[in-house]
């Protein structure tokens, strides 16, 4: 592993000169490369899945990306996928091994949300996203680690174990989809599902050097996603490259009558739309000036600015824009998300599912169950949300936050009048040392400054690798308007084609 900070032009040349290795282990393939081999009959899904399971057996002890691995189930699904292919079926995800964040419900397979509360919970149904992947013929290898109930920025708040960043095992992978991001980075899966309430797909993607996409709110059904903040949560893909992310999104997106906030709009073929054109001429890219102020590490800023230069070199017009209410994003987010979380988590009372700790009478049973079942970050957020919603403080905190949310939305509406997409850092720094922020929740919350606003206003965003600082990956965030996934994927794809950052892999694990 070497720290890399080189000029974009060198990388363009490097990329053009160095052909792709064709002697790779199967587990290291991208989804589209694996699918090509499956279609050509060069490999079977069983072989591909076995390769991934063997990789897990070798590196998982160090990375700890999974809460559970379903080896037998995965091989069974792979055999079935091979039978479907033999019967003439074809589908971009047929036979592809994938991981699912353990906050997304899978029928018959334990789903814990990273919490002791749901340690033994085996759901009797599938999330819609899971049903769609099953129908497409994907193979599920396991459930990935997450901060408890997806609350955290480092995957240290999992009740099971922390996940380690494959680039440096003493650092966090980011959170809360840190298990999914680390699994993709360590080639323990070809792709993964994550969830993003305030940046939980994009920030771990940035920290682990993979691609992570948060779709527009409502683009992917939330049915079967264990709720954190219902007006913010969104399921999305983590992948080795942009094309894989587009393939996964095409498989996941679409209207679902089971989710009353699902958007009823046709699903495009994101891969085809992403590949339109061979440069970025005519694309207007906004750079929000408020995203380049104090708190952003100098090394990260240098890398992001170099990436913006490269986008300009690809023909995009770079335009300075302003999002004047940016500074209010964090307090608005932490009031609204905790208020919604406190309401959503009221269902964990030890009656219908999950842990029960008997406390003598019914009320004491509720309290004891919740005391034992929830970890510190979940309790902290329930407390904060309960306070913000309580009589006497509702107007000062919750209502005020909802009003400022309107101003944040207007900021973006105004900016998107003059630009097609925007670019920014994903996080103020690179992956930090495990344990370094866990006792300072406010500092942990401030690391989400570039991601939370997208969730508050419902927009889509993608993190794509754009360099290294301090030996750790840095992601470039590309932000799109509502249902602007094709535009951000096209921008990310063109950038990726011109650079080789996504080809950098962690060293031996």
């Amino acid at each position, binding site marked *: 592993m070497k720290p890399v900070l080189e000029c974009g032009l060198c990388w363009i040349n490097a990329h053009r000169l160095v052909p792709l290795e064709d002697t790779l282990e199967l587990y290291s393939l991208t989804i589209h490369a694996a699918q090509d081999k499956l279609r050509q009959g060069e490999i079977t899904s069983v072989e591909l899945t076995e390769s991934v399971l063997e990789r897990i057996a070798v590196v998982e002890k160090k990375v700890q990306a999974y809460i559970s691995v379903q080896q037998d189930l995965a091989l069974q699904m792979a055999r079935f996928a091979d039978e479907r292919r033999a019967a003439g079926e074809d589908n971009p995800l047929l036979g592809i091994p994938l991981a699912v964040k353990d906050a997304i419900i899978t029928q018959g397979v334990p789903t814990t949300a990273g919490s002791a509360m749901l340690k033994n919970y085996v759901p009797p149904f599938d999330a819609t996203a899971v049903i769609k992947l099953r129908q497409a013929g994907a193979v599920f290898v396991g459930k990935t680690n997450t901060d408890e109930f997806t609350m955290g920025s480092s995957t240290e708040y999992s009740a099971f174990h922390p996940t380690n960043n494959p680039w440096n095992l003493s650092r966090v992978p980011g959170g809360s989809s840190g298990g999914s991001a680390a699994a993709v980075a360590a080639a323990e899966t070809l792709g993964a599902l994550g969830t993003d309430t305030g940046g939980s797909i994009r920030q771990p993607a940035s920290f682990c050097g993979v691609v992570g996409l948060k779709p527009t709110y409502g683009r992917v059904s939330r049915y079967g996603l264990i709720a954190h903040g219902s007006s913010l949560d969104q399921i999305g893909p983590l992948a080795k490259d942009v094309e894989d992310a587009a393939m996964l999104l095409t498989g996941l997106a679409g209207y679902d009558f089971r989710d009353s906030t699902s958007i009823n709009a046709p699903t495009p073929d994101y891969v085809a739309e992403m590949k339109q054109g061979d440069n970025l001429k005519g694309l207007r890219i906004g750079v929000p000036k408020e995203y380049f102020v104090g708190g952003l590490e100098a090394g990260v800023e240098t890398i992001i600015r170099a990436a913006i230069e490269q986008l300009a070199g690809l023909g995009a017009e770079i335009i300075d824009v302003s999002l004047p209410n940016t500074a209010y994003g964090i*307090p608005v987010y932490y009031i609204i998300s905790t208020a919604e979380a406190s309401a959503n988590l009221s269902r964990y009372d030890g*009656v219908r599912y999950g842990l029960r700790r008997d406390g003598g009478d019914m009320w004491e049973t509720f309290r004891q169950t919740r005391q034992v079942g929830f970890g510190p970050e979940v309790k902290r957020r329930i407390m904060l949300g309960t306070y913000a919603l309580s009589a006497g403080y509702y107007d000062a905190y919750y209502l005020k936050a909802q009003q*400022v949310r309107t101003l944040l939305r207007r900021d973006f509406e105004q900016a998107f009048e003059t630009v097609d997409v925007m670019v920014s850092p994903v996080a103020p720094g690179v992956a930090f040392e495990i344990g370094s922020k866990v006792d300072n*929740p406010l500092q942990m919350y401030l690391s989400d400054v570039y991601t939370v606003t997208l969730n508050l206003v419902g927009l889509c965003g993608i993190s794509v690798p754009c360099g290294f600082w301090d030996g750790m990956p840095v992601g470039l965030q590309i932000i799109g308007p509502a249902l602007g996934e094709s535009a951000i994927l096209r921008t990310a794809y063109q950038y990726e084609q011109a650079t080789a950052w996504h080809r950098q892999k962690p060293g031996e694990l």
Partner: protein
Amino acid sequence: MAKLSLTEVETIAELAKLTLTDAEKKMFQEQLSAILDYAEMLQQVDTTGIPPTASAIPLKNVMRPDEVRLSLPTEEALANAPDADEASFRVRAVLD
């Protein structure tokens, strides 16, 4: 305004149905006070006449056709219950 007293922490915990240890109460008193102090910056924003946003997309009521469908079988609905009896979740008596 934001500095929470221990009594307030206890009241919030009661509302949230959480039993906290003394150490947790003290920790949350400090941490929640710091977070709420930070959130005080929102008071600087003039929101006169600004409507609240509850959802990022315009929501309207969603109805489905009133058709009879299969629901989860009772045994599956009860499969994860900590305590069940016949077709019911079993809990301690709520009323004496």
